[in-house]
């Protein structure tokens, strides 16, 4: 299986304070990789760096065979990284539909398909994003990323704030996506859902990759040590 994403030993700073001290992770073509760790361990920072929203001081990032370590954000997205960011970040002053089409690129995912996945969004299509309920915003953020038809979908706590039924929907969608060969990098706290679909797990601790392996290899001891469960 060829590597789609290869992050090697990146170090990242926020101003003077260092957040990542050497994170490495790989996502293969068609793979689902779970990125795990306690609060504040650097999951989001890793993702921000992948999407070029933060710059690394050291280390290498390759995506689809290109060194993206010095590319601007939009180039990386155009190469096929679709981000569902932490905290939703919908465009507040745009309507639901405008949010979805703003950065859409041609491909399998169309407005119709997103609406099929999230009928709620269709109902609210003319509403300003900042007046949506929290869960609705979350759906919008996922739909928006799908509309860019990414090679690698990056989900940072994408099920936060969603009702159980919807969460199930999303997991179903993730499983479906996986079945169609979509590569996914995913951060989520619901291990019971996450582990069954992940091909690989990467656990961060204090800004370092502390453990990598298959979900089966994640023993209760390891889970307790790194995740506190």
């Amino acid at each position: 299986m060829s590597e789609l994403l290869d992050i090697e030993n990146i170090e990242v700073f926020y101003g003077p304070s260092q957040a990542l001290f050497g994170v490495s992770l790989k996502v293969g073509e068609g793979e689902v990789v779970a990125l795990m760790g306690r609060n504040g361990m650097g999951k989001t920072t890793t993702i921000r760096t992948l999407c070029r929203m933060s710059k690394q001081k050291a280390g290498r990032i390759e995506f689809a065979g290109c060194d993206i370590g010095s590319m601007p954000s939009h180039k990386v997205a155009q190469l096929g990284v679709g981000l569902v960011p932490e905290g939703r970040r919908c465009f507040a002053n745009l309507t639901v539909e405008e949010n979805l089409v703003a950065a859409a690129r041609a491909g399998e995912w169309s407005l119709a398909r997103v609406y099929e996945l999230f009928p709620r969004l269709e109902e609210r299509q003319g509403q300003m994003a900042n007046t949506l309920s929290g869960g609705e915003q979350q759906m919008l953020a996922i739909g928006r990323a799908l509309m860019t038809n990414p090679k690698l979908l990056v989900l940072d706590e994408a099920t936060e704030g969603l009702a159980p039924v919807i969460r199930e929907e999303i997991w179903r969608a993730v499983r479906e996506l996986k079945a169609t060969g979509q590569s996914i990098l995913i951060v989520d706290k619901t291990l019971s859902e996450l582990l069954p679909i992940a091909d690989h797990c990467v656990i961060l601790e204090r800004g370092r990759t502390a453990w990598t392996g298959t979900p089966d290899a994640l023993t209760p001891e390891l889970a307790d040590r790194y995740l506190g469960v």
Partner: protein
Amino acid sequence: MTAALFFEQLLNGLQFGVTLFLMAAGLTLVFGVMGLINLAHGSLYMVGAFACAAVAAATGSFWLGLVASIVAAAFAGALIEMTVIRRLYNRDHLDQVLATFALILIFSEGCRFIFGSFPLFLDVPAILAGPITLPGGLPYPIYRLSIIVVGGLVALGLYLLIAKTRLGIRIRAGEADREMIAALGVDIRTLYTIVFALGAGLAGFAGALVGALQSVQVGMGEPVLILAFVVIVIGGIGSIKGALIASILVGIVDTLGRVSLPSLFGLFMDPSAANSIGSSLSSMLIYVLMAVVLIFKPEGLVSQNG
């Protein structure tokens, strides 16, 4: 006031309003949609007027001058966007105010260096000169009527651009969250340069059109700037429709205010005092209007979120 005169003044108000809109159009685009306070908008307006006057004087053609005004201002706009403005999007409004204020100084003095301190000549083109008789026997300058038409077209064009095209959606998305729209694959940097140049071009275009009616001189952009801001704010930032409505409202209120306030006060006080108070009040009128609007609708007439 006779009915005919009242009608004429109403028309004048409308025309003044549309002129204001033309002056504000580029600013609405940059300020309302990109979220950048560009005090140098007036300078770009001036650049357009000077370019038009210079080219018209050299070639004898107002129309070539008009083209030159757009090109020169858009070019100047793109230039400052790439060298200065670009660094300001992530800054707060204060840095934008200071930087673009600095640009005003640079533009004004630069312009004076090139063109000298004396006002330039720019007149309306021959085919639009003089009055036309409106139905009802009212003579009205053709050029002013043309401005109403042009202003309307600009408003329509801008509205379609912002509200109906993907370009518009992306610009607005960029205003909400630049980092995010870039992370979704939109080259927001280049897009902003284009939009800024477009806004600058509009400013230059307005400078040329209005310059032909008023005067072309260093510093002509400053009063315009405040007026334009007033209009945009009354209208509701980011709304082209709001800006148009507000311009016309301001134009009409101002025009009717200045012709009627002195005589209104004359009804109950002696004429010279009435004249003085009436005209003082009328020069404050648009600010009063703005304050009243904002007190009752703190987000302008056409608020974006509703």
